[in-house]
């Protein structure tokens, strides 16, 4: 099998597809896309060896706007699709992306299993605390009391703490960024993408159209950077668990947890040599199996 020549990016604009973008002006998804492009560019990843896998939601349009390979899958299913891709070709950088409804709502079982499984995947959640594409219903991260047309009296359940869930489930890298702070977000993305193992980045993403509570301003008034707290030890899992519950007056952004766990791929002898997709299949010899049945 011939191998692909490495494609080296000269200019970050090479990551643009030119597709029309349909996000509302001011949407936090723009910041996330820009930070992701910057991160990919600075890491000098080969876009032909990178795939962005999304679910369904406003932000899940992202693959159409980033010139790497892309897969725009089903609502909530970006992670299993991404996992299948990693199994098939573990030399690819596989990045999954999607909304809070997508990842913490309908897709949450895949999220915590991805954390447990620890394939070398990056997972970015565009967390706007609302279901936007369907026009503004309550999401699993909506604040208690959040009023929407499906919870006209206000949401009763408290919001999930997705970072805590990720850590509890075994994620080896857990971070949070803010769509309104692109330079910081870019660094978080770079760390996540460079991390070996499942890396989860929850991004606070203002939805200017449907979420009138968690606005840019609301976040700006609350966020602070974990990096600024030199005493914070991101290798300490229990401390990270505790930190993950911090939500309200103050909201930390940055890397909450960066642990060290062997990745799933390494434990699979079938993938030790060539990626599955490069293994020859034209003439499989099944005679040894047939013998077992005689």
């Amino acid at each position, binding site marked *: *099998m*011939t*191998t*692909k*020549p490495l*494609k080296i990016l000269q200019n970050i604009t090479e990551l643009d597809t030119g*597709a029309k973008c349909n996000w509302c002006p001011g949407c936090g998804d723009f910041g996330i896309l820009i930070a992701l492009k910057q991160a990919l560019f600075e890491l000098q990843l080969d*876009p*032909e*060896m990178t*795939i*962005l*896998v999304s679910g*369904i939601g406003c932000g899940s*349009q992202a*693959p*159409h706007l980033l*010139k*790497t*390979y*892309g*897969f*725009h*899958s*089903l609502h909530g*299913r970006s992670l*299993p*699709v*991404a*996992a*299948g*891709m990693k*199994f*098939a*070709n573990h*030399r*690819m950088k596989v990045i999954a992306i999607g909304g809070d409804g997508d990842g913490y709502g309908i897709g949450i*079982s*895949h999220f915590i*299993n991805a954390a447990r499984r620890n394939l070398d995947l990056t997972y970015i959640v565009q967390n706007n605390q609302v279901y936007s594409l369907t026009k503004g219903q309550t999401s699993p991260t909506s604040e208690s009391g959040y009023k929407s047309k499906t919870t006209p009296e206000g949401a009763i359940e408290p919001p999930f703490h997705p970072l805590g869930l990720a850590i509890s489930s075994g994620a080896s890298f857990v971070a949070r960024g803010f769509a309104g702070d692109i330079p910081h977000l870019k660094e978080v993305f770079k760390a996540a993408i460079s991390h070996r193992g499942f890396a989860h980045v929850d991004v606070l993403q203002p939805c200017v159209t449907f979420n009138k509570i968690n606005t840019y301003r609301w976040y700006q008034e609350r966020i602070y950077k974990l990096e600024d707290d030199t005493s914070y030890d991101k290798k300490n899992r229990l401390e990270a668990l505790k930190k993950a519950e911090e939500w309200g007056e103050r909201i930390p952004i940055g890397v909450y947890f960066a642990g060290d766990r062997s990745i799933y791929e390494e434990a*699979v*002898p*079938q*993938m030790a040599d060539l990626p*599955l*997709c490069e*293994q020859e*299949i*034209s*003439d*499989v010899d*099944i005679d*040894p*199996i*047939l013998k077992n*049945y*005689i």
Partner: protein
Amino acid sequence: MNSLSSSFTWLVGGEAGYGITTMGAMFARICARAGLHVHGYPEYPSLIRGGHNTAMVRVGAKKVLGHDPKIDVLLALNKDALDLHLSELNDGAAVIYDGESVPYDFSAVQGLPAGVRIVSVPFARITKELEADRVMRNTVALGASFAVLSGDFNLIYNVLERTFLRKGPEVVEHNSRVARAGYDFVLKNFGEGLCGKKLTAVAGALERMLLSGNDAIAIGAIKSGLKFMSAYPMTPVTSIMQTVAANGVKYGIVMKQTEDEIAAINMAIGAAHMGVRAMTASSGGGFALMTEALGMSAMTETPLVVVMGTRPGPSTGMPTWTEQSDLRFVMHASSGEFGRVVFLPGDNDECFEMTLAAFNLAEEYQMPCFILTDKYLGESVSTTEIFEHKKYKVKRGTLMSISDATRVKDGDFKRFENTASGISPRAVPGYPNCIYTAATDEHNEFGDLDETGENRKKMMDKRARKMVALKSHGLPESERFCLHGEADADLTIVGWGSTKGPILEAMNLACEKGLKVNFLQIKCALPFPVDGVAAILAKAGKILDVENNSEAQMAGVIRENTGILISDRFLRYDGRPLNAREIFKKIISL
């Protein structure tokens, strides 16, 4: 001598969890290695213990097409087995049981057929005397079975040797001694010729495989170049996962058990999208959970092979029993309209061959392909000629190579190009110059989102054309049905899937009686072989639809496609498979 009188049925019954299945497998294996034809059908409740298990093995010198519920040798390991099966004995049958442990009053049994011999063998005592483990009572019983059938003890010995040699010669000898004790006990106390039927080895017979439909599918998938399987355990397809997993390291295949069926099918699609052959398998409710993602395979034109092994529904139903009630569900599963192939294998050979075909068609036509089987076919074992597989060619359709991609001009690649056949060129992520996004939303030829009416129609037509191409090239009509027997008949039986064997046998029985009966087997539900079936049924005499369900679903499909109403139906939906005897009786009655 017809197929019923020239074969015999051996049945072991006892409590679930006491090795009934293993014993059935051992008996079947011994017969198979003796050059005989074998069909083994296990019945067990959806419980690990306590329920009643049976393993039924039918043996004959000629091809055995299915089970025969008339028992010639009943090996009863407990009282239930006697209570339940004495009424199913054939003339001249023998009943083996441990009268010391399970006293039983046969005089109270009404209507035992003529010439039944009761053979009491003290399994428990013999095991004890030999200081063997309790579980080895089964081995005593096995030995006794062979004596009752006048079988040569060496047949047992050979298989014991083959089975246990890895564990050391003393294990072989110990097992042999225990089996021999059962064998000798019968000969000594009851003499020979106890059963009307005999077990006679066929000298110089071909070596044959003894395997299940599930095995055949798993092996077919491996032969096809399967690289990734993701699934969640569910009866009756779990053994496909397990067979693939067992061969995983050796063949470079990853079998991933996932958190649920949703993850399973989505992972398989993700893997297939990257260019590996991938599949998943499920049943009933598990398959239901997969229906959403089927549409993703269709819309992103990602090849996918799905095995659906059915069992009686609705809902959890009877998880370990058999039924053909999901034909329509599989044909129409998932929202929206798209092409698919639904194979209906009827025996092990078809399981194997259709799996090979499914993997090729899935890639050539970039669509989901289904193999619809059931518990009866999937978990019954039968002797099968060793699969011919050297001539199989892996066909990957328009899948490009990296070198092909190197020649593409950046920005030119249309992953969903609107070609004449509807089949578009396929580059996979990781290739140079072909960057695209595959989307479950409607998209244009490049893969970009496009909801205009014009584009929508174009892409719907493009995808639909693939089915046209498939019908004329990849899977011509002639491969989608088969007329068994004489073209000219007074009665045509219509059936599909696992009933193939029993229907064929019933047809043969009827023909031997001088009736003119043939059998139209539908091998593919989609694309349906419209012209062939219409032509045959239009000139048929009487028509009888035989299905293992209550709604005669295939009769509905046939009428939808040909307008022909089949009003004579023979349906069974009590969880048990149809057998040749009852189909034959129905034929006679028409």
